[in-house]
């Protein structure tokens, strides 16, 4: 069965590659009602090899589902929409040169794609310097929309804001509570913690302890014991990569209850990794198949993506999918595939995320009006899980000084 599944994955990858190859070298494919004409290109710079290639690849799949749907319904402005993927090898320098190549060689309308903040920032530098629109689907660094940004738009709420949301959530659950922080030393986690600490002071939430792990840590038992000794009401748990599962397990091993644990974000594989013993824990997210109120697009994404990739999509895939639709809408509003007009349309757009109906509006720096769900895990199986909404919050990107907290 393993071989079959691996072959299946390999086959799917092969098919994705074949499709990419076909789109990259040939004109649009032989389906019925295909729009004709010069395609409008989105330069999709993603982490397709290297350390975090899983996220780049999964986002690309979702983007391609959106692309196919749009083209099946006539494309945009009567022309086909083309997602041009380019690998950045999870390396910022590669991302910068991918940006340059997509701009000068493929003459794309806009960039999109990065799921990682450091690669996104590299593309940001190029985009702002060379006046190319850049719609970032999944990368949470505030710096992507620092004041003065002209061409970049960030779809995912910023990481410092997540920290703000976490404190608001804790405040609602138990005013005056204490929260222990235990996390890995990555820029993303540092940004979230900066937000937590800032808002905790203002909300009367106490920080019980603050423990950071180096990037290649293996074992967290000792630190988990430290957390347990402090008897906090809640524990903020966020490891980097697989260490997150180890960290979570070891915190639970020491006797912290699942209901005390708050994870800042939950991608599907992470939730499945936390497993049945984490039932009762909370995690933040922006899209989840357990959420009620999903419309047809949302449900469609879930079923199509699950069929194509073999696992359920979560917020990363959703943002990539929704971003492609957002670009389409902005294009229609602009009326022409001109970079400046497209950018202006994005600035003035007032629409909803195609899968969930959550508002999509951007401020003068390209930061989106932000939101977050907190879900509680109810049940975890081998391939699927169920969670329940526990809290929802919306906020303005500059509700706290995010640009100072994560320079």
């Amino acid at each position, binding site marked *: 069965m393993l071989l079959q599944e691996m072959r299946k994955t390999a086959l799917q990858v092969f098919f994705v590659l074949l499709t*990419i190859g076909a789109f990259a070298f040939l004109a649009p494919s032989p389906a019925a009602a295909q729009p004709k004409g010069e395609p409008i290109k989105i330069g999709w710079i993603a982490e397709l090899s290297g350390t975090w290639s899983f996220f780049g690849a999964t986002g690309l799949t979702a983007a391609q589902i959106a692309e196919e749907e749009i083209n099946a319904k006539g494309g945009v402005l009567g022309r086909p929409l083309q997602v041009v993927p380019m690998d950045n090898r999870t390396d*910022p*320098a590669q991302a910068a040169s991918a940006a340059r*190549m997509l701009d000068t060689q493929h003459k794309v309308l806009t960039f999109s794609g990065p799921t990682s*903040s450091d690669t996104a*920032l590299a593309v940001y530098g190029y985009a702002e310097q060379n006046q190319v629109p850049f719609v970032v689907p999944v990368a949470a660094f505030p*710096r992507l929309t620092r004041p003065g940004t002209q061409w970049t738009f960030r779809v995912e709420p910023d990481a410092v804001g997540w920290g703000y949301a976490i404190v608001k959530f804790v405040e609602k659950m138990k005013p005056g509570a204490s929260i222990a922080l235990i996390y890995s030393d990555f*820029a993303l986690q540092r940004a979230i913690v900066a937000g937590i600490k800032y808002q905790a002071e203002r909300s009367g939430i106490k920080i019980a302890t603050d423990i950071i792990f180096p990037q290649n840590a293996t074992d967290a038992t000792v630190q988990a014991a430290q957390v347990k000794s402090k008897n906090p009401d809640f524990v903020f748990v966020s490891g980097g990569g697989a260490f997150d599962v180890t960290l979570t397990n070891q915190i639970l091993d020491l006797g912290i209850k699942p209901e005390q644990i708050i994870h800042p974000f939950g991608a599907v594989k992470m939730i499945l990794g936390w497993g049945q013993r984490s039932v009762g824990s909370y995690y933040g997210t922006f899209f989840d198949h357990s959420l009620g109120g999903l419309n047809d697009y949302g449900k469609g994404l879930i079923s199509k993506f699950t069929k194509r990739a073999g696992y359920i999509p979560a917020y990363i895939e959703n943002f990539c999918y929704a971003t492609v639709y957002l670009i389409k809408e902005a294009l229609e509003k602009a009326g022409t595939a001109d970079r400046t007009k497209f950018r202006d349309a994005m600035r003035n757009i007032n629409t909803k995320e195609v899968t969930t109906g959550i508002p999509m509006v951007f401020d003068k720096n390209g930061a989106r009006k932000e939101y977050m769900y907190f879900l509680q895990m109810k049940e975890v199986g081998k391939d699927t899980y169920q969670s329940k909404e526990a809290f929802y919050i919306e906020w303005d990107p500059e509700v706290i000084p995010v640009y100072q907290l994560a320079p």
Partner: protein
Amino acid sequence: MIFRRAAVVGLVLLALLLPFLLSANRFYAFILGVTYLYVLWSSGMNLLSGFTGLMPLMYAGLAGIGAYTSVNLVMKFGVSFWLAMPAGALAAAVVGVVLGLPSLRLRGFYFTLSGLVIQTALTMLFVYIPQFTGGDTGISQIPPPMISLPGDKSFALTGVWLEEALAVAALLTVYVVHRVTRSTWGKYLVAIREDDLLTEALGIGVTRYRVLAFFISSLFAGVGGAFYAHYMGFVSPRSFDVLTSMNIWLIVGFGGQGTILGPIVGTIILAPIPYIMQELYLYKDIVYGSLIVFTTIFLPRGVYGSVLFHRRNRALSRSSAQGKTEAARL
């Protein structure tokens, strides 16, 4: 003799013309630019690994020092690239010698390992001093080199002109390395590589020449680093980590250590692969790795090195009847 001279001149002219020939296709022009950069880097490293027999794994870290120095001088202090780049090279060379000095006494593999440790430390340093390096997220929007013209104007070297500058830099590097190896102390370096104990016994300061080789090699690392930064427009600590050092060293080893053309051949074959295989990103690592394994087993002297070796063998058997040898040919 004349044929060889003509061939060299022809190749130099080709190298200078290529940026213009390819300038319409930015993709290929970019690959060309990257190739020139790696020719520069690998020739510089060849001086150390090929001719002195040391495998310097901290090379990329030194390149990073050159890059960050140049970038900081240009972006924070408005210094011209043409001053900042040599400053960066010098910084790299000084750091290289200071860090490398203690380990120069070590033999073979231990020197390699100490280089690995120093490289890891340098990459970590780059991450943890964001005031100079922008940390993990790097420095973007690095301006291209400017040439000041009379009348208070300046001309930015971008596109084809920057590739041309890279071509010139690469050619100069190859030339310098060539002259060094031909010189007396170039020959000392080879003697040290072959048998350092004997060389020491003959009264030639082994460590002194190693340090010199290290200094010059690190200079080129820094030059390349500065050019890299202003060519790519973006640097991050990941650009200068162990894998980069190893890639450069692989190019040298693959092409043929200890020969002048070896690194050039190696660069031309290996450097474009990640870019040409961009679409087939899943396979590029496998292809790259397989090439290396293949070369280790079947072409242990590197591609060009093997060519030279066979040519020499044939020449030897041909001329042995007359009692001549070409043993001193490098």
